[in-house]
């Protein structure tokens, strides 16, 4: 008799838990985010040059018109393997070959203030592509 009571109590508890869980699930399903707290994100696809194109040169860093607080800057990017990369600032030149994967990274010195960097890739077929970047070296706080 005593064991039957325990079993019945446990079954009742289990049923209760099921009902409570079901009710909570239904409540959660009915909740919606208010319109003013939601936002629509549109992802546009931009065609990016592929390493197969004849004039492939992409500069990952530095960002154009960016500010830095050091006199040296690392220029990194990707081009066709076997190319020659010439990076020139107003006071420094660096010439490098990219890695077999086409990636390159080179450090150049820049002057105080606004600088123009010229990054030229001379491809194995002799053609070339130049990308310019405007970079500012300043320690001013504004």
């Amino acid at each position, binding site marked *: 008799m005593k*064991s039957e009571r*325990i*079993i019945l109590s*446990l079954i009742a*508890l*289990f049923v209760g*838990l099921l009902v*409570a869980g079901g009710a909570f699930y239904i409540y959660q399903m009915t909740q919606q985010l208010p319109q003013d707290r939601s936002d629509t994100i549109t992802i546009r696809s931009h065609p990016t040059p592929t390493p197969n194109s004849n004039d492939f040169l992409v500069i990952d860093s530095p960002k154009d*018109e*960016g*500010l830095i607080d050091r006199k040296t800057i690392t220029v990194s990017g990707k081009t066709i393997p076997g190319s*020659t990369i*010439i990076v*020139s600032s*107003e006071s420094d*030149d660096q*010439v*490098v*070959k990219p890695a077999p994967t086409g990636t390159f990274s080179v450090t150049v010195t820049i002057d105080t*203030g*606004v600088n*123009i960097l*010229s990054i*030229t890739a*001379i491809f*194995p*077929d*002799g*053609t*070339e592509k*130049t990308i*310019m970047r*405007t*970079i*500012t070296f*300043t320690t*001013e706080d*504004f």
Partner: protein
Amino acid sequence: MKKIVLLLIPFLLILPGGVLAETTPTPTSNPTTEAVTEKLSNQINDLKDKIASRVAQLKLVEKKGFIGTIKDVASNQITVIDVAGNQRAVDVDEITKFTSSGKDSFGISDLKSGMKISIIGLYNKDSERLLARFIDTYTLPLYLSGTISNVDKDNYTITLSMENGKSYLVDIESVTKTDIYDADNNAEKSGFSKVEAGVRTQVIGYADKKEANRMVATRILLFPNLPKNPKVIVVPNAVNPTGAAVSTGSGKKLTPIK
């Protein structure tokens, strides 16, 4: 008894969750506690709004620096054409500092249309305007890549033919630094005597103020081992970009590359 034990095992596994769920605090109906909770909630919301506003402000404004040619100057606004050819609006206020090399006093009234300036300031992504903090006059450097088509040993000039079909007459000065690069891209100091027509070259310098398509070189990088650019047609020692046809000695005049 065994049946009971078997039935008990799953319930014992479920029970802790149920117990935890039951221990979740429930809001009390005490009016004092409710008032405190509401006040705290309002304070948290205010703080959240302030943080969100500051984050949005920081994301909206970024420090930028660029170079351009003045198109128009007003009392507190400058219109500039940047190096990419885009028109840029620059705002000026009482904090903006104006400088020009060799001049002690320089201000917005000294800026004229056609002047080249560098601007550093705060760019508003929303309005696409830059609030200038520093404005300085600027001499735009030239970075030219091409092939030497002529070497004038008497006048210390070279002619550089480029991929776009244009040619530049490059003046070699005593301050001009010349480097020659080998196949492994190791640089070696060179001189004007080693400059030859047909060599792939990078020239860095400044435009001649009086003559178009003429520049003064500060640095010359020679790459004799790099492949020739098929887009550059070079007739060695036969081009004079100043316009005068060069005599071949046979009476036949050659036309300069343009």
